[in-house]
């Protein structure tokens, strides 16, 4: 079947954001889960507040009347539908996009999202207590992973799929930088052997949250240091959640949109991707860390926002009469 079908700009935008919101949901569940493991007795509130800082959500967190304690942060991300960066709102936005995309996505994708969305609405405050929190996080992760699998197996791979993948990869790269940044926001003992062990424990948890612990152990040097963990999460292109792999795949997707579908608007976006790649591979991770990992990650996050903006301008927004008012935005913009 050689018939080339056009893709509505609105559909491209919807696919991009549907994928993005779902990726965000999965990663939030990962972050919440790992925060739980960071809880140190007597210091619970600090660990949980770090999660708010990582997501640059302090302002809305306090504005919505939450207080600094573990329960409040959990509620803020898992139950508070008024939190635009939380799981309920992200899932709602994903379903909203899916609804506009029903003519395009597979029935199975829609049906699963519809049911998943409904299940998540039934999470109650009790579900956030004790060991149940980890189970809820797993359910959320598995919900998105099921979506991913259904999409892989049923979603037609024409133009729309490329926009879907772009949205997901931009979000995934962003989330990996936030996961990495967790160390910046957490307190560790000041010095000595105690500090070294505490750091390694935390990095182990970060790796587990990113589902990269075992792979890291396979490829890491015997006497690995925190720098090796950072290098792995940032630059190892065999690791599905590494920033470098995401960027590499974005570049391929944009190139395909250009060559296969003749979309000429990819130039500016491709330039952004090249800059991102140069920033990641241009210098050793040790230097990045020495110059300030937090600042570097901030920069990557800003570049990703600009990249999403370029894609939007080229393919979605200039077509919308009320672009500014209607367009969806990256609410995590720092």
């Amino acid at each position, binding site marked *: 079947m050689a018939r080339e079908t*056009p893709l509505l*700009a609105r559909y491209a935008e919807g696919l991009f954001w549907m994928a993005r919101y779902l990726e965000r949901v999965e990663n939030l569940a990962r972050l919440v889960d790992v925060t739980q493991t960071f809880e140190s007795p007597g210091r619970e509130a600090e660990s949980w507040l770090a999660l708010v800082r990582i997501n640059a959500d302090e302002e809305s967190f306090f504005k919505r009347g939450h207080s600094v304690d573990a329960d409040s942060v959990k509620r803020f991300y898992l139950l508070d539908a008024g939190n635009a960066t939380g799981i309920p709102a992200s899932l709602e936005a994903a379903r*909203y996009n899916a609804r506009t995309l029903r*003519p395009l996505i597979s029935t199975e994708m829609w049906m699963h999202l*519809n049911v998943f969305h409904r299940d998540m609405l039934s999470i109650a405050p009790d579900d956030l207590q004790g060991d149940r929190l980890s189970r809820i996080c797993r359910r959320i992760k598995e919900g998105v992973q099921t979506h991913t699998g259904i999409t892989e197996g049923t979603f037609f791979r024409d133009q729309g799929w490329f926009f879907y993948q772009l949205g997901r990869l931009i979000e995934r790269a962003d989330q990996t930088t936030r996961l990495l940044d967790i160390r910046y926001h957490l307190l560790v003992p000041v010095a000595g052997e105690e500090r070294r062990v505490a750091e390694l424990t935390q990095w182990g948890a970060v790796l587990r949250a990113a589902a990269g612990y075992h792979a890291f152990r396979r490829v890491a040097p015997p006497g690995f240091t925190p720098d090796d963990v950072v290098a792995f999460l940032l630059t190892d292109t065999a690791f599905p959640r590494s920033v470098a792999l995401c960027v590499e795949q974005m570049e391929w997707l944009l190139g395909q*949109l250009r060559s296969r*579908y003749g*979309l000429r608007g990819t130039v500016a976006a491709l330039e952004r991707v090249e800059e991102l790649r140069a920033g990641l591979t241009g210098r050793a991770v040790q230097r990045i860390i020495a110059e300030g990992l937090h600042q570097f990650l901030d920069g990557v996050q800003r570049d990703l926002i600009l990249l999403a903006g370029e894609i939007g301008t080229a393919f979605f927004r200039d077509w*919308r*009469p009320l672009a500014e008012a209607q367009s969806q935005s990256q609410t995590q913009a720092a």
Partner: protein
Amino acid sequence: MQLSSSDPFRDYDPGAYFCELTSQRADDQGTAGAVKARIGMIGLDALRARASAAETELINLGITFTVYSEASAIDRILPFDCIPRVITGSEWRQLEAGVKQRVAALNAFLHDIYHAGRIVQDGVIPGDLVFGNSNYRPEMKDFPVRFGTYVHICGIDIVRDAAGTFMVLEDNARTPSGVSYVVENRHLMSRAFPDLMAGIRLRPVDDYGRRLLSAMTDIAPEGVSDPQVVLLSPGIYNSAYFEHVFLSREMGVPLVEGADLTVEDDRVWMRTTAGRRAVHTIYRRISDEFLDPTVFRPESMLGVPGLLSAWRRGNVTLANAVGTGVADDKAVYAYMPRIIKYYLNEDAILPNVETHICREPEGLAYTLANLENLVVKPVGESGGYGITIGPRATKAQIEAARAALVADPSNWISQPVVSLSVGPTLTEQGIRPRHLDLRPFAVTGRETWVLPGGLSRVALKEGSLVVNSSQGGGSKDTWVLDDGSR
């Protein structure tokens, strides 16, 4: 396997009504007996469990319509009753011929009133009823439409009286909905109740999307070799959004909203990732007055500025055409038998329900004198709103209807209460008769094709005659038996 202890049909009694499953029909090919026997094998409890699982599936699939109240929007399914309604081969041939005849007359009527208006000059129908009708669009005057087709998609509501006579209750010539349920009900039936259907030869309903696309392609502006068809929807907040999704998927064409389209130099374009792309046929599910803010309601955000101008220039085709509402007006309906005779020189194959036109003094007088026995309907409403059913109304309701009639007689028609046919329906009490109607769908481009069967709507409340989904109606799978002849 344990047989159920009692026959679920033991207490089923349609009384004086015609039953769409069990009433004797010479060519039912033993279907009614087979269905009853199979339901007996399944047993009421299992039938209920499977029916409930089937409804859950509808919710999960999002085969829903949206009901808006002041505060909220709720997605609801059209309740599905698993006991099918059966139409025999000969019944269907009569219905099909009647629907085609009706569609031909509707199109001839519309062509006439937007051109010479002969039917008015010849005194068959009053001029003010046509030209003074709020749905008459002067913009359409002398505008040529391809093949003379104004009503491309038509849904005709048909009921059946106690004697088994089919009668037309209402024409829907604007944007009739419900066809998605016809197809989805069949899919659901074959997934959830394959044992009920096994071995029974039915006319398929899967062809609708292909036929519709083919008609939409036919009517595209002349000279366009590979026309781009789109479906124009008001968007996800419209109560029929699922149907729009369904139709665009079945046709394989984009579902667009007003903001996806733009008109430049009297041509319509859609906004794609690769820039603008020409559009040639628009199956629009937006009513006339929202289509083009430069012509109709200026505040409409749903439509496309300049769309009508592009159409008048012959660069795009709209289906249905603008201004078809005058043909499905409930007052014009009363003249349909005469309209059919006038244009086709044939008697109506499907008769009307006797109708009194309250704008006419005799009609008003008769209606006021017999309110207790009549159904009084406003001419401009749809969805079963504003209806008073005399024999079931309270004194206060009768008086309210009387006051409304006297205040604005031309807004009303009245009809005798038709003893609507029934179908066996699964209820909490068991299998009970519930009243039904039928809405067949006709698609017309170059010629007319009628989807075998149609939407059978069932009034789930005991004794209720109102089948509308907004008022507690459900639906059934509609089986047209395939007897090999067409």
